[in-house]
């Protein structure tokens, strides 16, 4: 808007000057003039002069800047009754004047000064999409996301340089991340997939990559870390007391069975306290192609007991039977699952930090299942049908507390940690077996397993000089696992019991372990050379008892009980280890590292006193060119010299530890031998492509192998011992992002071969084993919000043995194809998945499986509350057959087709806040 003073005073000035001037002025369509500083009375260079048509701020006819003499010339005003000229200059008042047709003379404009400074401005939204500063890369998500993301994992998949595998594991430039931080604090440890798959995308504004990540600030100057970590920065609207979503939901299955769910994402982030609660509870289940726990929590939960399918099929559903079309088949699973975890960090003053985490998982369910087999022995054919009522439960509880102290000068840090975890699981299986549609037998299996772990650790880190740090750590743990199994004749078809014999097996396997470890570490950095020396002493006491009774029941009623085993073993293991690393830093991203790691292990029990030496040497060279390519070469040599130990130390199967250096259980050595390992990784960051090549040559290996894994068939229940084998393998993968069609392509292949001697049925037999796999994956953004994924895995193996003069060859192959399509838009989400899997082999399992699952989810907002509904449809078809070979007697068994027709259920839920 034009202010009166902008026109009036200068207008008078202009008019006055025009009266007595000659030469300059408007000639034709040219407007000329000069601009001067009214205070100094000197010409003003660089003033902006704009000519507007008709009204101010309308069409610009011409513009210019005044020259050194303060002169200007404009054109284009011809034919216009009135034009407007505006004069601007930094530090001067703006002047706007009308120019009327017919006005002649030189324009002399005097501009008065102004004290109003130019307004400074910073645009918050104009942030760099990717900002690199030293070892930190920050992604501004506004440039990468498009509102179709639901969880943090969906965001990470779209960020260049970051990849997410199928189980949720995140890698950055090919390196697995050490952890996922929330505003700088590690709330999840290694179980970060719980966070990436459950924290909603809308809460995050930035993602940071920390390279050469070192969590402990005392180690800042001496760390040889080349780890990476991700840090999530919350949206600035977060951080106010409680935020999050609770989604209760309910529905019904097609046969009226009730369905319910309660999922939660709740945060409390304040200056001194962070808390996250994640919960997934309900009995809605999922199609067979996806595992509920994997989808929600990635690989964080390692218990096989919680990994199962949760398929619901109406009872009494008939389908085509191979043998007996009259027999009803039903397959029902009514599992209820509760999963809840709380993570919190609280700062108690400047120096103390307390972290408390808890996890509770409970699953209880029941499966009804039938199958039938037909098998032939010589010229006879037998039919066997089994109905199974399978009740199962599983419980995991886990709590840990950390208390950390940091000195004010950040030169000393004390970390204490205590963890308690407990699991319990059980199966109660009732079986009814029908033979040739007449004879019936009842049998049952009852098994239960529990475990509990206690773990404590104290770690002291202290700086001793400019570039020297000492660390001392004490760890203690106790692990108990009792197991009980009771089964009756569940594995043997009736025809074996021609005399009417039945047997019941009672077995108790109890394991107890106590472990204590003391270690000290010295770290030193001198310029580009770093040195790390670690000395540790560890003592493990393990007790293992196996009490097994087999009871024979002769049909006549006489009972004869056989005690199979009644053993108690105690093993004391002492380990003395030395680890020396040295690293030469070439650039900020390139280094050469040498590792030297000899370790002495001594096992003692009442019968034996065995000692082993396990040295390991490794050289790693890593070169990276900024923003372009990265090469990493690894060459390692490992050697384990020990008389073979049959002592199996158990890993805790139920959870991953929160911290990488905490492992409450110790896995003992199951092999001896030497191996040479070579790997090479190439990565082109600019083109998002990477390649990996690995080769291993092992010689003089002796190891235990599970019989089923080795032969892909059940030969015996005892493991197989492979002696003095030579093994070599190589494999590689390549991945590239094909920009024209925005497709991620991954190719992975590997081949392994080993030759040695295997102990099979008590004999040492030469054995050759080969296996090959090829995997191809396409992942493409087909359109806005639409992603397609196609994966195919082919495997082939061959085993050649020479047992008692019998030249036995077996081979098998399998192929699995998975297809999924996901459409995600604001308020909509649809997922379609399908799997086709076949496997065949000589004397091996032959199976064919096809399944599909479709889910559609709709979210709407009413009165600022989010509501959602989802529809799920599942289909499954499975058939399998397998051969059993037992001491020269062969019989074949085939399982009929198991079909699950379309199954549908609905749920509805809403967000509370």
């Amino acid at each position, binding site marked *: 808007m034009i202010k009166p003073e902008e026109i009036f005073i200068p207008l008078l000035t202009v008019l006055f000057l025009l009266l007595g001037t000659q030469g300059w002025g408007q000639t034709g369509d040219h407007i000329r003039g000069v601009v001067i*500083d009214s205070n100094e009375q*000197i*010409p003003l260079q*660089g003033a902006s002069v*704009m000519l507007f048509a008709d009204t101010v701020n*309308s069409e610009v006819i011409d513009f*210019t800047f005044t020259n050194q003499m*303060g002169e200007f010339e404009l054109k284009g005003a011809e034919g216009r009754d009135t034009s407007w000229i505006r004069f601007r200059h930094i530090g001067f008042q703006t002047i706007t004047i009308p120019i009327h047709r017919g006005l002649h003379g030189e324009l002399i404009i005097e501009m008065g000064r102004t004290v109003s400074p130019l307004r400074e401005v910073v*645009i918050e939204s104009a942030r760099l999409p990717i900002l690199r500063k030293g070892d930190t890369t920050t992604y501004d998500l506004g440039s990468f996301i498009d509102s179709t993301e639901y969880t943090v994992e969906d965001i990470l998949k779209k960020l260049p340089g970051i990849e997410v595998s199928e189980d949720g594991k995140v890698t950055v430039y090919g390196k697995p991340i050490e952890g996922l931080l929330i505003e700088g604090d590690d709330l999840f440890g290694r179980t970060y997939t719980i966070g990436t798959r459950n924290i909603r995308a809308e809460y995050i504004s930035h993602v940071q990559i920390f390279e050469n990540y070192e969590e402990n600030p005392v180690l800042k100057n001496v760390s040889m870390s080349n780890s990476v970590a991700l840090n999530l920065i919350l949206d600035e609207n977060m951080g106010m007391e409680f935020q999050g979503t609770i989604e209760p939901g309910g529905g019904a299955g097609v046969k009226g069975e009730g369905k319910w769910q309660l999922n939660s994402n709740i945060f409390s982030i304040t200056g001194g306290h962070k808390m996250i609660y994640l919960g997934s509870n309900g009995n809605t289940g999922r199609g067979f192609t996806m595992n509920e726990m994997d989808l929600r929590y990635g690989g964080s939960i390692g218990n096989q007991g919680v990994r199962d399918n949760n398929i619901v099929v109406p009872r009494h559903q008939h389908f085509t039977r191979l043998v007996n079309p009259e027999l009803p088949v039903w397959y029902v699973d009514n599992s209820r699952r509760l999963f809840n975890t709380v993570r919190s960090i609280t700062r108690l003053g400047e120096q103390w930090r307390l972290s408390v985490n808890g996890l509770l998982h409970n699953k209880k369910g029941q499966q009804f299942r039938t199958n039938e087999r037909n098998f032939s022995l010589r010229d006879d054919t037998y039919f066997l049908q089994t109905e199974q009522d399978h009740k199962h439960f599983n419980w995991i509880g886990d709590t840990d507390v950390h208390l950390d102290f940091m000195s004010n000068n950040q030169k000393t840090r004390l970390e204490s940690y205590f963890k308690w975890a407990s699991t319990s699981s059980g199966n109660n299986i009732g079986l009814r077996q029908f033979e040739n549609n007449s004879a019936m037998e009842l049998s049952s299996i009852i098994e239960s397993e529990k475990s509990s772990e206690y773990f404590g650790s104290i770690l002291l880190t202290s700086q001793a000089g400019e570039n020297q740090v000492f660390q001392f750590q004490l760890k203690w743990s106790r692990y108990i696992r009792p197991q009980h199994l009771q089964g009756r004749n569940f594995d043997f078809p009736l025809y074996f019991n021609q005399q009417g014999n039945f047997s019941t097996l009672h077995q108790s396997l109890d394991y107890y372990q106590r472990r204590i470890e003391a270690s000290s570490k010295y770290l030193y950095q001198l310029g580009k050379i770093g040195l790390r020396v670690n000395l540790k002493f560890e003592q493990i006491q393990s007790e293992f008892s196996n009490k097994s009774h087999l009871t024979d029941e002769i049909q006549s009623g006489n009972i004869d009980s056989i005690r199979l085993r009644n053993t108690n073993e105690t093993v004391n293991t002492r380990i003395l280890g030395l680890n020396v690393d040295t690293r030469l830093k070439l650039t900020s991203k390139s280094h050469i590292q040498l590792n030297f790691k000899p370790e002495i292990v001594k096992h003692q029990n009442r019968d034996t006193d065995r000692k082993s030496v396990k040295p390991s040497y490794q050289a790693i060279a890593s070169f990276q060119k900024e923003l372009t390519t990265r090469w990493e070469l690894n060459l390692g040599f490992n050697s384990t010299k020990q008389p073979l130990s049959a002592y199996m130390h158990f890993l805790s199967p139920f959870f991953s530890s929160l911290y990488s250096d905490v492992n409450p259980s110790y896995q003992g050595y199951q092999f001896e031998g030497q191996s040479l390992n070579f790997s090479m990784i190439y990565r082109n960051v600019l083109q998002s492509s990477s390649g990996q090549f690995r080769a291993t040559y092992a010689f003089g290996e002796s190891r235990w192998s599970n019989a089923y894994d080795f032969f892909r068939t059940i030969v015996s229940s005892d493991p197989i011992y492979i002696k003095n084998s030579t093994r070599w393998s190589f494999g590689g993968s390549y991945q590239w992002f094909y920009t024209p069609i925005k497709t991620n392509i991954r190719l992975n292949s590997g081949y392994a071969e080993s030759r040695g001697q295997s102990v099979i049925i008590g004999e040492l037999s030469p054995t050759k084993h080969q296996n090959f796999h090829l995997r191809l994956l396409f992942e493409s953004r087909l359109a806005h919000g639409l992603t397609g994924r196609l994966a195919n895995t082919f495997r082939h193996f061959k085993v050649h043995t020479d047992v008692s003069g019998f030249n036995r060859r077996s081979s098998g192959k399998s192929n699995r194809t998975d297809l999924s399509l996901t459409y995600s838009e604001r308020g909509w989400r649809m997922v379609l998945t399908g799997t086709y899997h076949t496997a065949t082999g000589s004397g091996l399992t032959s199976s064919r499986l096809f399944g599909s699952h479709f889910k559609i989810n709709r979210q709407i907002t009413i009165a600022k509350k989010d509501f959602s509904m989802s529809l799920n449809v599942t289909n499954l078809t499975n058939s399998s057959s397998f051969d059993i070979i037992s001491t020269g007697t062969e019989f074949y068994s085939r399982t009929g087709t198991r079909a699950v027709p379309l199954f549908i259920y609905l749920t509805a839920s809403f967000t509370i806040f």
Partner: protein
Amino acid sequence: MLSHSLFFLIASLLGISLLAQESIIYQVEYRCETKIRKGKSHDGVNTLYFSGDRSLYIHNDFPKETKFIGGKGDPNRQTFHVIKGDSEGIPVFMNLSTDSMIYKTVYGSGSGPNFILSTQIPQINWEIYPSEKDIGGYPARLAVGEFGGRTYEAWFTEGIPVPYGPFMLNGLPGLILEAFSRDEKVHYWFMSFKQITDPEFDIAPPTDGIKVTMEQIEEIRIKSLYQAEARGATHNDPHPDWEIEKSKWTIFGDYKKNRREKRNQRR
């Protein structure tokens, strides 16, 4: 009147700056994103400093040191890609009073110092449109003009009445806050505008390099072409989209074309 004119003439001969407020230096930050063949070396934060009749534009995130990407293909015919660094951030200096633009280029400098070139300030024929929008609280108008083989849409604000902008874009009656090439190869977004209070800061042309003329660069490149051809190899011009200015370097192409025509004429 005569006394007025005489005074102005004397003042300009004495080189007295007639601009007021020249001691205040202003800083404008841009975010640059390009899809040119040279790579992302121009990308990131770019800063424009201006005061009176002088301006200096710097690419803050331009590599400070020379880096080597590596060779590809047949070892006997490998193409090596080098990202040349520049300690001064490939600056562009303009002096309105002398109508001169002094800028640096990494092209053709091989492993040696970068070249410093001096030319007239490019004249861009802008067309101003009535479209308006707000950028950082400043009302901005749209202008379209051609520069360096690309058509740019530039949003400028009269509220900061200076003819400067990102890189070599200039000549509008207000500071250019945003500019985009229509072929989507070059983008500049406005980030901040503020006054600098550092008394030591000076807007000056680049000095770390070799001052050459365009003719001298051509001479150097033709000489290297002879050397390459003597070994059975040759040089080619970079891709037209190698620089922000499209098809800026056609030295080899033009020379070979002239050479071919002369040979044809002789025949």
